[in-house]
């Protein structure tokens, strides 16, 4: 051991352990600061960014509601043994999940502007496009709801005659659509956990679920509702704070899901 003066002029013992400690400290630093790279989970992952310029995607998302069972899930799918998390959830009692978009003037104007910009339209082309869109979607004549209707079950559940769709005002008036335009069925991918089907081996622990991608049927449905309630009051007037969109099973009326647009919030964003 050596006796030396420290910076306060006090005597201090410097042991060989101090030297070893400092060496180990440097070694730790060496390891922690890494050579030329550090390992990590993918940090740069950015979610929810729109590929297109402007605010169309934001306005679209603001006007889109999820209409799904309260429990956030479906009944157990006969098509999906072991089907649980990673997309549609298990444990509910309704067979549909719907993303419904209230196509008010702000969504439509924003969409028309975006697509006319993407297609580099001349002013004449833009006018013609706007007229065409308004005619095809009865703008000004009906209240237009764009809905993506999906199910984790079979295509049968996408037959619209199984269901009654309606809007509901705060006073409880339920209004059915005047027109419905159905698009074809497509398949939407979700991540789904599935238990391995191997039963030939025994284990003390549950087998690890596999995350697989499953394709579920869905279809686009355009709903066109009357612009006013039974009293002639516009459904989007300031008289209403919210507007509900609901679905009931036509053969089992207690089976119902609904969601609501907060009209005040949407107005405040315009």
């Amino acid at each position, binding site marked *: 051991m050596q006796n030396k003066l420290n910076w306060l002029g006090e005597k201090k013992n410097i042991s060989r352990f101090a030297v*070893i400690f400092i060496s180990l400290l440097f070694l730790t630093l060496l390891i922690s600061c*890494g050579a030329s790279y550090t390992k990590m989970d993918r940090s740069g*992952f950015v979610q929810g960014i729109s*590929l*297109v310029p402007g605010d169309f995607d934001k306005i679209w998302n603001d006007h889109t509601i999820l209409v799904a069972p309260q429990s956030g899930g479906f009944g157990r799918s006969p098509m999906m043994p072991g089907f649980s998390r990673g997309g549609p959830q298990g444990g509910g009692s309704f067979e549909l999940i719907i993303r419904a978009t209230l196509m008010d003037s702000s969504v439509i104007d924003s969409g028309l502007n975006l697509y006319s910009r993407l297609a580099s339209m001349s002013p004449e082309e833009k006018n013609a496009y706007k007229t065409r869109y308004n005619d095809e*979607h009865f703008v000004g004549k009906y209240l237009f709801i764009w809905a993506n209707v999906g199910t984790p079950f079979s295509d049968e559940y996408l037959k619209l005659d199984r269901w009654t769709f309606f809007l509901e005002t705060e006073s409880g008036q339920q209004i059915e659509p005047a027109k419905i335009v159905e698009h074809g069925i497509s398949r939407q*991918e979700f991540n789904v956990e599935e238990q391995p089907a191997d039963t030939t081996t025994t284990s003390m622990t549950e087998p690890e679920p596999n995350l697989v991608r499953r394709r579920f049927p869905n279809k*686009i449905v355009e709903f066109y509702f009357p612009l006013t309630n039974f009293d002639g009051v516009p459904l989007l007037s300031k008289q209403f704070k919210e507007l509900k969109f609901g679905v009931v099973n036509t053969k089992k009326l207690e089976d119902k899901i609904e969601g609501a647009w907060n009209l005040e919030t949407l107005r405040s964003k315009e």
Partner: protein
Amino acid sequence: MKPKYFYLLALFLPLIFSGCKTIGLNSSRLAQPLEINGTLDNWPKAFPVFLADSSISIQAANDDMYLYLAISTDDPEYREDFRHTGLTMWVDLKGGKSKQVEIHFPASTHARFNARQGGFWQSLTEEEKTRASEELDQLAGGVLVYNQNIKQALNFPANDASGFAAATSRFDGEKIIEIRIPLQFQKDFLAMELPQGQKTVGIGIETGGRTRGGFQPPNSGERPGAMRRGGFGGRSSRSRFIAESKEFWLEVHLAK
């Protein structure tokens, strides 16, 4: 201190300094701007640096306006990695390791757009659909620049003339990604400027970290027409594992 402890410390010191060092990369001076086409045809002779056990090589060139990087790999694992997740990198014009400016190429690996929603696409004429499709392809194959501080992104189409640009090619088993980074740039919320007298630029590159099931668009409805151009683009549902990601940092010495 006894001599043997001194030697012990002396032994560790070079290791310490070599371990903490960011990889240095000397940039070559360009006489004229490079055309971003994913090839190295017009690149000056330069000494690349090697990363990831020599699986990836990087070289740099610059003029007063831009820094150009060429990232090459013939390693099938890294080729696959870039194909699935694209390229993620960070640019720090102050020469450090700031992640404020994050770059993704191609943009389609991190930005989404469902052109089917709302019925807007269907109301276009066939000619308008072709034009819009071409524009969307340019956006999908472009460079997405994300400002981490304010959580906003700017997308530079593949044919952008003056901002960020990137292109990729694959020739004889080698994948090349060519990137153009402006040394001075101001648009909307994104302002970048090489400080006066700054001679180095910090570049971080991330590899690996593949996500489960590839990328899941928020809305699955596919826009009619191709949306997977611009290099990697593909979103295979076969990539169902998470690989560990690695971060490499370079200190690029600009040529004057």
